[in-house]
Every structure is written in structure tokens, then in C-alpha cells.
């Protein structure tokens, strides 16, 4: 499941604070590590992923570059509101390869996940793939 493209079962990116038309937010959930979303300056950066149903989530995986501090919030509402913090983590810096991180959650339910990139190791950060495990 961590390897499945999120968009293949109807997930979508509802909102993102940055968008370069060549690197749109959908690239984070197309299952392809070579395509990515690129932030365009100033932190924090944010994006929200919406699932078609309420999902049980035990692990979130993220492939990225130059993210430093990330906070993940969940909502169980039909609308993207009432977010609660699920996890906050500082990623290690990588050189010459992407950052690969898995974040375990104690089996939370969510209709929406909100990702807040609080800081970076550079002015611009990329997210290549977001995966989840039920």
C-alpha cells in the first residue's frame, strides 16, 4: 500500500501554498518518484490531501528533498477543517539522494491530511511521493 499511487484510489491534493505549473502538487500522489512538487519560497509551506473515504492510517511515507521540520495534521470531517496535530518530525538532511521518511501513527482515521513544512535546509523543498499504509 505504501507503494500505491494515492491518486489511483481517488485521493487528491486539495490545496498547496506553492505551484510552479511545471511541478504541480498532483505530482506528489502520482506514485512516480521522478515527478515532484516544488515549493516556491518562504516557509511555512502547506498542502492538504483529501481521501475519498475515511481512511485508517498507520504509516505515512514521504520522499522529499531539503525538508527540515514537518508537521502532519488530520481531519475526520467531510470538509477540510478541524485539523488535529498527529505528528511532528525533523528530517535529516541528505546530499545526492532524496530524503525517505516513514512516520508511524497509532492507527488514526482521516478524511484529510494536512502537511505543514515548517522549515527547510534550503529556500526551496520538493516532495516526490506521499504514501500511506492502512
Amino acid at each position, binding site marked *: 500500500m505504501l507503494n500505491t499511487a494515492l491518486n489511483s484510489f481517488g485521493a487528491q491534493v486539495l490545496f498547496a501554498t506553492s505551484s510552479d505549473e511545471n*511541478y504541480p502538487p498532483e505530482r506528489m500522489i502520482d506514485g512516480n518518484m521522478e515527478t515532484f512538487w516544488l515549493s516556491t519560497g*518562504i516557509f511555512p509551506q502547506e498542502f492538504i490531501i483529501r481521501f475519498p473515504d475515511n481512511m485508517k492510517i498507520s504509516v505515512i511515507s514521504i520522499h522529499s528533498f531539503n525538508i527540515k521540520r514537518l508537521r502532519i495534521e488530520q481531519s475526520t470531517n467531510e470538509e477540510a477543517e478541524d485539523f488535529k496535530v498527529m505528528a511532528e518530525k525533523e528530517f535529516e538532511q541528505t546530499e545526492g539522494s532524496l530524503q525517505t521518511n516513514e512516520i508511524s501513527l497509532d492507527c488514526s482515521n482521516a478524511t484529510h491530511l494536512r502537511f505543514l513544512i515548517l522549515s527547510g535546509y*534550503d529556500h526551496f523543498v*520538493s516532495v516526490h511521493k506521499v504514501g500511506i499504509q492502512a
Partner: protein
Amino acid sequence: MVKLRARCILVGDAAVGKSALSQMFCSDGSHFQKNYTMTAGVELLVKSMSIPETNDSVELYIFDTAGRETFAETCEKMWGQPSVVCVVFEISSLDSFNSCSRWLERVRAHCNGLQLPGVLVGNKSDLASRREVETAVAQEWAREQGLQYHETSAKEMENCDAPFLSLAQAFHAMYQDRRQIIQRLSWDPTDHQ
């Protein structure tokens, strides 16, 4: 087409013309205040700059900071993480030029090791008869610090866009560079055999 966002920290001694310069830039030259109104905190101005020969633009969030030492500490707390820096002195005051390295250090201390493109601005170029800082001297120091140097006159509306265009271009160039690095990094040769 992409719209970048940059936090531009504008610093320099009191009364060198930071507010005049940024207001001139943001109001397209319709707004020069002859009477000095001291900035007591940080004033935020926003202006979008298009990058020549591209469809891209950079939205500059200009943090016009008080030059008076009394306010320095409070102001620094409002900067957040700088993207670019603009250090201003007036060409008719050597003291204001000598303060520039201190201002630059102050801003750099907020960068957490991130690269900081910047410009040095010698304002009040209309006061050439009272010049205390030679262009060559300012240029040399700017070069040592990796800054671009511009002389402006907010009063005469001379060259006020140039420093901000320089900053926007430097930030845009940095984006292009990072974009290519990440592109190369994520290209997996095993998928292309």
C-alpha cells in the same frame, strides 16, 4: 510560469532613506516624502517583479526595518527567515556606510545557514556635492561580501527599481539552480534502460 515568493529584509542606519526607497519602488514613483517620518518597527510592503525574458515573477515581501538602534531587537523578531537582503546607506554619510557590515551580519544571523543573495544600496545620489563614500569603495566592499551594488536617489526617482530587480533575479536564478539539481537527483537511470 511560476510565481516565487521572497522575504526581503531592508536594513541600514536611521534616515538613510529605506522607507523612501521602498515606497518609491512600491508606488511606482508617485510617493516621495520630504519630511522624515521615523520607522518605529517593521513595515511590510509587497510588490511583484517580473523577471525579464521569462514568464516568471517574484513577489517581494519587503520588511522595511527601523534603523534606530532602540527598535532593533524588536524588529529582528519580526523578520522570520530572510530570503534576500537589501542593505542601504547614504552616499553623503561615511558613518552610514561603515554600519553596513553590522547590518549585514545581523540579517545573516537569521539565515540558519541558508544562502542569502543581497544588494548594497548607496542612496541619496542627488547629494553628490556632499559625497563621503566613493562609488569604487562601496563597489569593492559589496564585491567582497557577494552583494550587487546600486546607487539610487529616492528623491529624484533615480534607479529605485534596480536593487529590487537585482534581488528578484538573484532569487529566481537560485530557484532555477535548485530545480535542476532536484530534477537530476530524482531521475532514476534504472527506470530508463
